[in-house]
């Protein structure tokens, strides 16, 4: 019996801890989960200081969100009369309900932050150029999907924050020219925020968007292989000493047979010097496991220390004062509150300018930036390359502005959106008893 168990364990675990180079190579082709990795991988790609494993962290957070989210679905009904009570039940009556909800919330906040940092990393290392441009676009779409997941998610508790945040968000959509009103009608399933809106946001949040993200994530990973691996290897490619071997003809799929690209072999192991290589299994997989554990531990620690907030039950007759968006949208709220302009006798709403035009421009510029990057190839995969100095400064400056706007919204805005400097107490808001 013991023999059999040991052998079973051996069979389950050998691919994750290969004992020889041959086993390391075999592991990749015999384990489905590992087949995405190349057998051997440039050590530079595996470096902590290069990528900080931010991509892995994003994926880890999304995995945590998917699992906690799926479990939460068993305790939540998207009905306006029941949703709020279900949230209270999760907090007080469901065993480990507090854990599910808190970790889901912390992972959500974390994911918005980490995907942004990941994008910043890719930008600062110029890792979006050439054939990696398509993957950059997919990344931007994933960023947008992450923000939409957050937005649809926080309607679900049906508390005051939910109701009024979605009121504001959908009214921004309405400001869009021509189709704005229809888009709002489609999103809400009506003219007001009610049961239809809750149901549509629920389906978006638990199915449509997560499926889209998982598929895009898969594609995102696939593109990394087709692009030859992380941009970190480009310097290797430039400075390689070994003679390049001819690219072997092997199978190389694309989604609809549309895109062409490199073979799925990353910079061929035979092109790399011995000392530049490492084995995906176990060296990379070990690091990935490390990052996942770190991310999980941080979100669990935060869940233990701080409960996810829940405001009063949704009340269409009373707008909370102040009514603030979650931190990652506060910069947008600052924009929409201050970008109403008068052109002659026309007044254009901040909802349009700050809510649609400015973010639209930012997103658009972000997307096409790689096309205008004319720096030499030696900048690819290099942190803060000199020739890309001004690009990096621009990106950093925009980031700083966004962070400042968030800080203002967090720390300085009070009731009626008035400014209350730190130390200045807010007026006591009246209450019933």
């Amino acid at each position: 019996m013991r023999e059999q168990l040991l052998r079973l364990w051996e069979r389950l675990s050998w691919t994750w801890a290969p004992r020889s180079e041959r086993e390391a190579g075999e592991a990749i082709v015999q384990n489905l989960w590992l087949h995405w990795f190349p057998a051997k991988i440039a050590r530079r790609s595996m470096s902590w200081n290069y990528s900080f494993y931010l991509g892995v962290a994003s994926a880890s957070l999304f995995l945590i969100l998917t699992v906690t989210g799926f479990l939460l679905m068993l305790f939540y009904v998207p009905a306006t009369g029941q949703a709020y009570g279900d949230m209270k039940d999760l907090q007080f009556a469901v065993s480990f309900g507090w854990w599910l909800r808190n970790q889901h919330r912390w992972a959500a906040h974390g994911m918005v932050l980490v995907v942004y940092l990941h994008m910043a990393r890719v930008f600062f290392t110029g890792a979006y150029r050439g054939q990696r441009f398509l993957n950059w676009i997919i990344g931007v779409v994933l960023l947008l999907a992450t923000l939409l997941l957050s937005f649809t998610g926080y309607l679900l508790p049906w508390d005051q924050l939910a109701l009024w945040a979605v009121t504001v968000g959908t009214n921004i959509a309405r400001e869009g020219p021509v189709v704005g009103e229809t888009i709002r009608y489609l999103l809400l399933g009506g003219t007001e925020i009610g049961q239809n809106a809750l149901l549509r946001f629920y389906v978006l949040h638990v199915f449509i968007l997560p499926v889209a993200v998982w598929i895009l994530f898969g594609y995102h990973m696939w593109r990394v292989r087709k692009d030859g691996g992380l941009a970190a290897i480009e310097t290797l490619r430039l400075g390689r000493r070994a003679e390049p071997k001819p690219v072997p003809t092997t199978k190389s799929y694309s989604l609809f047979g549309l895109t062409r690209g490199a073979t799925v072999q990353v910079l061929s192991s035979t092109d790399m010097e011995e000392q530049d290589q490492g084995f995906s299994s176990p060296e990379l997989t070990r690091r990935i496991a490390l990052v996942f554990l770190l991310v999980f531990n941080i979100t669990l620690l935060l869940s233990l220390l701080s409960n996810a907030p829940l405001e009063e039950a949704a009340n269409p007759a009373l707008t909370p004062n102040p009514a603030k968006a979650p931190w990652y949208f506060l910069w947008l709220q600052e924009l929409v509150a201050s970008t109403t302009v008068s052109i002659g006798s026309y007044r254009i709403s901040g909802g349009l300018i700050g809510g649609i035009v400015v973010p639209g421009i930012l997103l658009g510029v972000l997307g096409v930036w790689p096309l205008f990057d004319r720096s030499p190839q030696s900048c690819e995969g290099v942190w803060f390359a000199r020739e890309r100095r001004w690009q990096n400064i621009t990106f950093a400056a925009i980031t700083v502005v966004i962070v400042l706007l968030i800080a203002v919204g967090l720390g300085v805005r009070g009731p009626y959106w008035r400014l209350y400097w730190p130390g200045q107490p807010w007026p006591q808001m009246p209450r019933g008893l």
Partner: protein
Amino acid sequence: MKGRESFESRDFPWLVILSVGFFALVALAFWREYHSEWAPLEKRFKQILEQHGQIEDSRRFSLGIRQIWNPELGVVDRCITCHLGYDWGSVLPANLKEPFTPHSPLPYLEKHPFARFGCTVCHGGQGWATEQTAAHSGGEHWDDPMISKELAASYGLSVGQMVQMRCNFCHRHDLSTPGMDEINLAKKLIKQKKCMICHTIEGKGGMVGPELTFHADKSPELFDFSHVSGDKTMFNWDYQHLMDPGKVSPGTTMPTFGFKPEEARALTLLLLSWKHLTFPPQYIPSPIEVAPLMVVHVPAEAPIIPGAEDGRKIFQTRGCNQCHTIGSGKLIGPDLIGVGGRHPVEWLRSWLADPAAMIRANPDLAKWPDLFGGIVMPNQNLAPAEISAVIAYLQKL
């Protein structure tokens, strides 16, 4: 592995640390889950049951979150997870320490059974919660705090007085309810001081001042608190406004009524009880002072007439005295005093045999039913001998 340096030596310690940390944090999560506030309280209560001789109940006592659930009223009250003695008033002593103290044996508890009304309907607070602070005051985002001794005392009231505000959520339409002295006083004052000359309440009244029908639903933010002292609560606003309208609302035309503080407090409780609530009809309290729908008649003794005792007995036992008085006026049917002089014997005989047939046969009796609420005298199915005995009695009236 071949001789180049692998990451293993550097990664391995971190992997171990994070794995152990992983385990530790999960262990902490379990610790938190199983160290709830209520678990030790429930264990203690089990002992208390035993100490008071409730061996069977103590043995059957299971640990876990308890709740009173009534979807008709939207009640989900988990207060009883800690307040375990609430229903043990007949067995456990009244001086048992909180949270095990049995509910005081109030006279109206029978009409408000726990299983139907729960706790928060009367006491306020957050029924969903299983932690003390969240359950009592509710924390930052709960606007319906439990009416605690401290809260009531801060307004110069006892809990029993302040809770009446909540009683009146449902008992709004009572003229006067036993056990609600403050609210009853307030309702009297409303009538006495003629508030409705200036304020509309439930569709009637004047429009000099704002409508008060659902005063308690108005958002506190819409009121001017700049002349209100103390905490910015609606209680303070209403109370201070009642005591001195000109101070709280400068320039107002509302007169100063010179209320005593307890009167103004009572009125404040009343005002803050006026919420727009919907509940199923079976919960609408029956009005305490009922407008008479029907006076239940207790028949007086029929007069004794010598020689007509049989007839008198029939009059009292066969239902005649439920509809007819003798000398006390019209009841359902006419007063029978002097009936002997109004109708001859033959008439009485046919009548008592079949009143409906007589009305059909006689045109001048046709409008009789109209005179008596449309009621035709029912046939009492008297035997001929009985009819004779009754007639003998009736003739002498």
